[in-house]
């Protein structure tokens, strides 16, 4: 009889441990099943999201208000990014989302500039106005190429 009780306790302990493990992995993982309750999702279409990863931060005025949950190639060859935004944070209809870099070579994140519209984005709405990732190589080559051109014009 005593042996049976010990077996039960060990079994219960194992199950609790396993549940704790599942909870922990869901909380720390890239996608949490609990996140849909606390967040709402909006999408944004960019020309270029080079360097942006799923799980990247979404910031307003430098404060993290959500994260990127999905990046896919959408219609018209635009990158469609789904953002999970904290329910307490309201984003205006005419907000502008731009992909920025933390420091010069840091991680990419999405910065949202709030607009002046009185209408707010709802679940599954789209942020229409976006600024894509800045392509440093393109800028440098434009600068070099541009200056060479200007010199030859003189």
């Amino acid at each position, binding site marked *: 009889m005593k042996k049976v009780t010990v077996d039960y306790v060990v079994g219960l302990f194992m199950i609790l441990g396993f549940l704790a493990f599942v909870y922990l992995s869901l909380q720390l993982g890239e996608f949490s099943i609990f996140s849909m309750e606390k967040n709402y999702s909006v999408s944004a279409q960019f020309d270029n999201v080079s360097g942006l990863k799923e799980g990247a931060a979404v910031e307003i005025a430098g404060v993290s208000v959500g994260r990127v949950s999905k990046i896919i190639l959408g219609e018209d060859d*635009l990158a469609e990014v789904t953002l999970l935004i904290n329910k307490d944070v309201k984003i205006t209809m005419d907000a502008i989302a731009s992909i920025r870099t933390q420091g010069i070579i840091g991680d990419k994140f999405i910065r949202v500039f709030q607009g*002046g519209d009185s209408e707010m984005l709802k679940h599954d709405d789209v942020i229409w106005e976006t*600024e894509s990732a800045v392509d440093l190589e393109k800028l440098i080559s434009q600068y070099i190429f541009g200056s060479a051109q200007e010199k030859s014009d003189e």
Partner: protein
Amino acid sequence: MKHLFFARRITTFFVIISALFGFCSVSASSDTPLDQMKTSVEKLLEILSDDQLKTPEMQSERKKRVVSVVDGIFDFHGMARSSLAKEWQKISAEDQKEFVDLFSKLIKQRYIGKIDAYDGQKVVFGKEIIRGERALIYSTLQDNSSSYSMVYFLKKNQDKWLIINMKIENVSLVANYRSDFSSIIRKDKYAGLVKMLKDKVSGFKESW
């Protein structure tokens, strides 16, 4: 890198002036946004290359024609509201009206005021994307030596597509003003911003 980018942006702004006022309002309701744009650019080029309008006496007439065109295709109210962001809700209806007026003058003065810089640049249109009431038009402005990418954001207003924002080399015009205005408002309040705008457009002719 930021300086380089900024310098590039300034240059770009100068060069694109010509394209900015290139959109006329003549359009039928069935036209797609791209059709409207194309008609407008043709109209603009007509005004710009008209030798009769190039004489000094005709300068004001030329500007007037360009401005009448621009007024019909830009949603200055929407752009001003969007640029002022949160502050827009806090000011009175009269102040909003005044701000739209100042903002449209600022834009016109800054870009259209320089129409003489036009020197045969070409506008090449790319794809257009329409999603309900909103549309995106991709275009490239080609200069002799370089080309600049320009993207227009349009919104349908009754039967007409109006420009509510534009991106030049991936820099959003409204986002740029939004951050400028908000830093001025933080420092000098809304009154300070209005005063600054008034100073800037004071030399601007009423006829515009």
